[in-house]
């Protein structure tokens, strides 16, 4: 008897959620900008991965054809030492997208876990974690980067990933914490507690799914944020080592005024790549927000 009711509820839930999913997909597809964003993001990511898989030659300099304008052999022209810019932008995309996605996901995970703990337990635990987050928020990222560079004696990709994650989790943290604080008073949480469910179970299996939507949205927009951040750090000279062709490092050529004036292709293509990707991610994020989190528009 009880068995049948649960299945029927489950079935109902299933059909309800699938119709919700359909509704959401339709809603998403109606948002032209979001669809555009999704297509661009997928296309650029695939192109970059394809570039990496087929091992496009991004590293061979050719000093006889330095700063060559785009033509059929070099679609994006060549850079200041004659490397093919098209290959570099593709390969750089792999690194930049990796930096963006890795840092956004990991910092969201950290932010969500800490936010869940702080919001759910409240009191002392909450106070301590909030203080820690404020300390990290107040810390200029530059200094952390510099300390790591100086300690490790290396401007590596690992440094950057570490620092972005360490300094990037606070926004997600605040959001999740606030959500948890209001959700923990809800009846279903009280019921779970009354049944003696494990706290970790309540936090991560019962409450967290309700907060997933804003987390997904903020993770998406964080990808864009970290990609831009990487470019800024490279510009100041504290990014990943020059031998790694991230979009930021490629765009660094724009430091040279004569490149900006005379060889537009050297900076416009990487610049466009960054801007287009960030733009697309932002559109996608907006679209997701419309669908997943209508109240937070």
């Amino acid at each position, binding site marked *: 008897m009880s068995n049948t009711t649960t299945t029927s509820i489950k079935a109902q839930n299933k059909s309800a959620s699938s119709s919700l999913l359909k509704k959401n997909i339709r809603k998403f597809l109606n*948002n*032209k*900008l979001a669809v*555009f964003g999704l297509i661009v993001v997928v296309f650029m990511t695939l192109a970059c991965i394809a570039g990496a898989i087929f091992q496009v030659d991004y*590293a*061979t*300099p050719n*000093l*006889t054809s*330095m700063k060559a304008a785009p033509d059929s052999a070099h679609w994006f022209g060549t850079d*200041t*030492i004659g490397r093919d810019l098209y290959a570099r932008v593709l390969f750089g995309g792999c690194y930049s997208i990796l930096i963006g996605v890795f840092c956004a996901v990991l910092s969201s995970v950290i932010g969500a876990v800490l936010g869940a703990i702080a919001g759910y337990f409240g009191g002392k635990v909450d106070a301590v974690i909030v203080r820690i987050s404020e300390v990290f928020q107040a810390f200029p990222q530059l200094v952390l980067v510099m300390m790591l560079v100086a300690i490790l*004696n*290396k*401007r590596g990709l690992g440094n950057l990933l570490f620092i972005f994650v360490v300094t990037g989790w606070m926004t997600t943290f605040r959001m999740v914490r606030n959500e948890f604080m209001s959700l923990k008073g809800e009846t279903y949480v009280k019921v779970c507690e009354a049944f003696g469910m494990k706290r970790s179970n309540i936090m991560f299996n019962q409450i967290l799914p309700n907060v997933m939507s804003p987390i997904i949205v903020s993770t998406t927009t964080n990808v864009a944020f970290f990609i831009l951040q990487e470019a800024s750090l490279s510009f100041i*000279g504290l990014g990943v*080592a*020059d*031998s790694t062709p991230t979009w930021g490092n490629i765009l*660094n*050529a724009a*430091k*040279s*005024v*004569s*490149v*900006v*004036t*005379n*060889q*537009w*292709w050297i*900076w*416009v293509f990487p*610049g*466009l790549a960054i*801007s*287009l990707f960030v*733009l697309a991610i932002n559109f996608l994020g907006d679209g997701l927000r419309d669908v997943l989190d209508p109240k937070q528009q």
Partner: protein
Amino acid sequence: MKKVLALVLAAAMAFSMVACGGNSNSASSGTASGSTANTVSTADGTLKLVLSTTDGSSTDDKVPTPWMNRTLPTNLMFRSLFLADSTLTSVTPDLAESYDISEDGLTYTIALKDGLKWSDGEALTADDVLWSIDAALGTTQVNSIYTSAFKKIASKSSEGNVITLTLSEPYSAMIDVLAQFAILPKHSLESVDLMKLDSDTTFWQNPVTSGYYMVDEFNVGNYFTMVPNPNYEGTPAKIEKVTVSYVNDYLTAAQSGIADYLYGNATDLVQAMQSMSNYTATPVDVLFYKYFIFNMSGVDGKQNEAMQNVEVRKAIMEAIDRTTLATLYPSANVLNSGVPNSNEAYNGFEYKFDAEKAKADIQASGYDMSRPIRICYYNNDQTSIDLINTIAFYLEQAGLKVETTLSNDGTTDLFTNRNYDIGFKGKSSFSMDEWYSEYLSTDALFANIFGGDTSFDAAIAAYSAATTEEEKTAALKTLQELEQEKVYKVPLFTVGTYVFTSSNVKIPEGVTFCNPLYSCDLNFANWEVA
């Protein structure tokens, strides 16, 4: 519908970026004329100079010390005993009236002009000269050409206006070095801690000077202006006012019309400046070495094992196509020792580029191919980065692994930790002397990198003491053979420097520019501003 409109707008904006780039490309000549208009409209009898805050030589809160580099702004304020010509090897009196060198080349007698005054009215005396020499030996920010010369002064004295210097060994370049050495006012600086001599902002924001000008207004972070020094005893300069702005990029400064004079050797700067119709580019003959230092061992015996085998070092040089690399610079000349290939004393030896041979040699040398070669470099400009990336590529072609690191700790990085195998450096040399004196076992810096090897000492002493051309050539030949045998440091090439002057400035006939980091006679008194 509207979203489609927005999409189109977004695309249009994105492409306008391209258009912007394209426009600025096609209008590069327009750029030049645009800034001409700009500079002409603001020209008011003022000479506009710039100092770079990004090359590490000056900071924007003080006049840079003339004891490191002699840049034009400081040359206009501080004088030396003598004034060099554009070759930097022939001098005329400046603060000094006359000089005399004894037969044995050990005693220098220098008479100062009478009635010299500092800009604050105090008398400029022999005391100032002697104090300056002592101070240069005791302070930190000072070019090694001065310290290595002054170390040879065994005793010095003055009697009235006459200074006597006695050397412990002959040093043929002494007068040339003195012609670069700016005399600073003892009365303003003797109370300053020598360690902080170059950073005493009370003095360096309004220094007491001996040259054409003195500082009028100092605006920290932005600029300083100079007005004629009322106590200058020679013909005053025709230009009444000079402004010196602190900028981070010379080219932008020139293009936006705030620099009447600048210099440089980086390709992008030189090419862009040459395309500006309102600037005159003058190539200058300088000894600007770009070179590799192999990190060998310290005086303490701490060795860098990987580089000990000379075959490895030679193979590395064979792997690099320096002739092609030289095309990264507007006018670079490959050379194989401290002596330029065009010099008569060049011994004809050559590090030939041969990728195949390099690959075979490096394998034969027994070098552990899985161990990366670690290169550190000092300059952060695009051309240097490009150069290093290309070198890394060549070495990878020879089967080596390469790690390159931008170092911000100067040469000391090589020996404070022996983390690097090769240092890549640039040196704007005063003379070949300076190149070879780095090999001295007593050179505090390089003794820690070449393990205090004494094999060069005798040959260097012979070269410093040489007075005739034959002696010099012979000494140079010995030195070249030694360095090609040891392979401690290897020049890649020398790069040519350019001086650019804007059409605002009228430079008198017959002026030849010298290395812009040193001082020479530019007949500045007769410069005019349009």
